[in-house]
């Protein structure tokens, strides 16, 4: 299996978001990894390092990441002065940019809304546009920083299904930062937990076989215990 991401001995000091104290992490091509941890554990710091947007960061370590990396933020981060389609195709070049943008919008079930202004869409729809924007780059690595954190519970469930489908179609390596243990188990092949800037746990998610709900609950209880929370469902 080819490796998409390789991180060795990554440290980040003096950041407002949480430090990193020597992180080693590999993500295989096409693998879906969820990164969980308490606030300030360094989740976002690691994601920003992989995205290459931590210019002010101090620290060292080795990062190997693919050429095509897309980022989905917690806020959809659409430019309010550009139509939905122009947001999706922002920065793309080539003869068939429009067709690619429309195709990506169709994939997130927003056909027909391409001329709308971002603020005319609901929060979930805006986040779907952001997903479409990241897909048009055909990323080898998709970084998502709590992308559903600001959505209501029902919309979040729909977005889970959409993200699972999209990642199965396009097969990027995915690093999903989330504070939602259920979301992590539901979506990821592997859950990595950061604590105080170190990898505290690295647990494969295997819900195949009989008693899927039981396995789900067991893993959920284990992850929550590692986070220092007593799972009311496991008690």
């Amino acid at each position, binding site marked *: 299996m080819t490796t998409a991401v390789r991180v060795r001995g990554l440290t980040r000091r003096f950041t407002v978001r949480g430090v990193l104290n020597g992180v080693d992490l590999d993500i295989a091509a096409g693998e879906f990894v969820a990164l969980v941890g308490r606030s300030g554990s360094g989740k976002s710091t690691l994601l920003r390092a992989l*995205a*290459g*947007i931590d210019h002010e960061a101090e620290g060292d370590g080795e990062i190997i990441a693919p050429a095509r*990396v*897309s*980022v989905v*933020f917690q*806020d959809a*981060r659409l*430019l*309010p*002065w*550009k139509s939905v389609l122009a947001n999706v195709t*922002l*920065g793309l070049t080539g003869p068939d940019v429009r067709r690619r943008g429309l195709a990506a919008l169709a994939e997130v079930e927003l056909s027909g809304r391409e001329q709308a*202004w971002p*603020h*005319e869409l609901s929060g979930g729809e805006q986040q779907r546009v952001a997903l479409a*924007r990241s897909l048009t*780059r055909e990323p080898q690595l998709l970084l998502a920083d709590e992308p559903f954190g600001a959505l209501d519970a029902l919309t979040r469930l729909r977005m889970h299904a959409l993200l699972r489908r999209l990642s199965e179609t396009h097969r990027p390596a995915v690093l999903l930062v989330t504070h939602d243990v259920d979301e992590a188990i539901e979506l990821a092949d592997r859950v990595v937990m950061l604590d105080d800037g170190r990898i505290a746990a690295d647990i494969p998610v295997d819900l195949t076989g009989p008693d899927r709900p039981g396995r789900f609950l067991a893993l959920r209880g284990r992850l929550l215990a590692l986070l220092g929370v007593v799972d009311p469902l496991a008690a």
Partner: protein
Amino acid sequence: MNAPVTAPLVVASEIGAPAERIRLGLGKAAPLGWLLGPGLLLFYWSVGSASGYIDPRILPAPWATFGTAVELFREGRLQTNLAVSAIRAGEGFVIGTFAGLVVALISGLSLTGGYLFDGVIQMKRAIPTLALIPLVILWFGIGETMKVTVIALSVFIPVYLQTHNALRAIDLRYVELAETLGLTRAAFIRNVVLPGALPGVFLGMRFGVMAAWLALVVVEQLNAASGIGYMINLARTYAQTDIIVVGLVIYALLGLLSDGAVRFAEARVLAWRRSLAA
């Protein structure tokens, strides 16, 4: 099986209506309510003039003022002077806006440009433009060049300041986004910085329009041989209060109209914000 629960029956009247809350907000504004103040002012002015309480030498009656305006228009003096004033203000506004935009782009989009220009302009900002008039007169004489220069300088400052501010205040989140999308610097400026700064540009232009009329009023008091200011000055010499009032009303209308024009252009260009405000 659950036994049927017998809840005590409460009749609505026993609880009473929901507590009446004092409304602390301002409530709904009446349509055209803003006209009340100006309307009352006009009413007192009319009553005062009709009853002879206001001396026409102090302030002529509204209808007399209106008659004077019609007469000035028939003679052609009103439109001639108005055209001269409007062209002066317009030239100054266009030059000042253009210069303000160009310098703001240079100093807003690059650190070096900022080091070069911003300090100088912030210093200039501390000197009221109208205080520069004596110097401008020595440089350019007393003619049109001086007048347009003073107006352009007055427009330059607010256009520069607001544009520069808006360019430098680009949301960091959009900068990050542009980086992750791999935009070139040119594409970043074209797609993110400039459209994001446009509201600031328009704000600067609205301040600029007002500054242009203010500067116009002042320079037209200085040895002008035409223009609304000249008309007012001449009227002062002959104690024609009605013509002075007509001139002032014209200034007010010009200010309102040009502000409206900039706001109209703003609404057209910033269509993405329109339904946001609605």
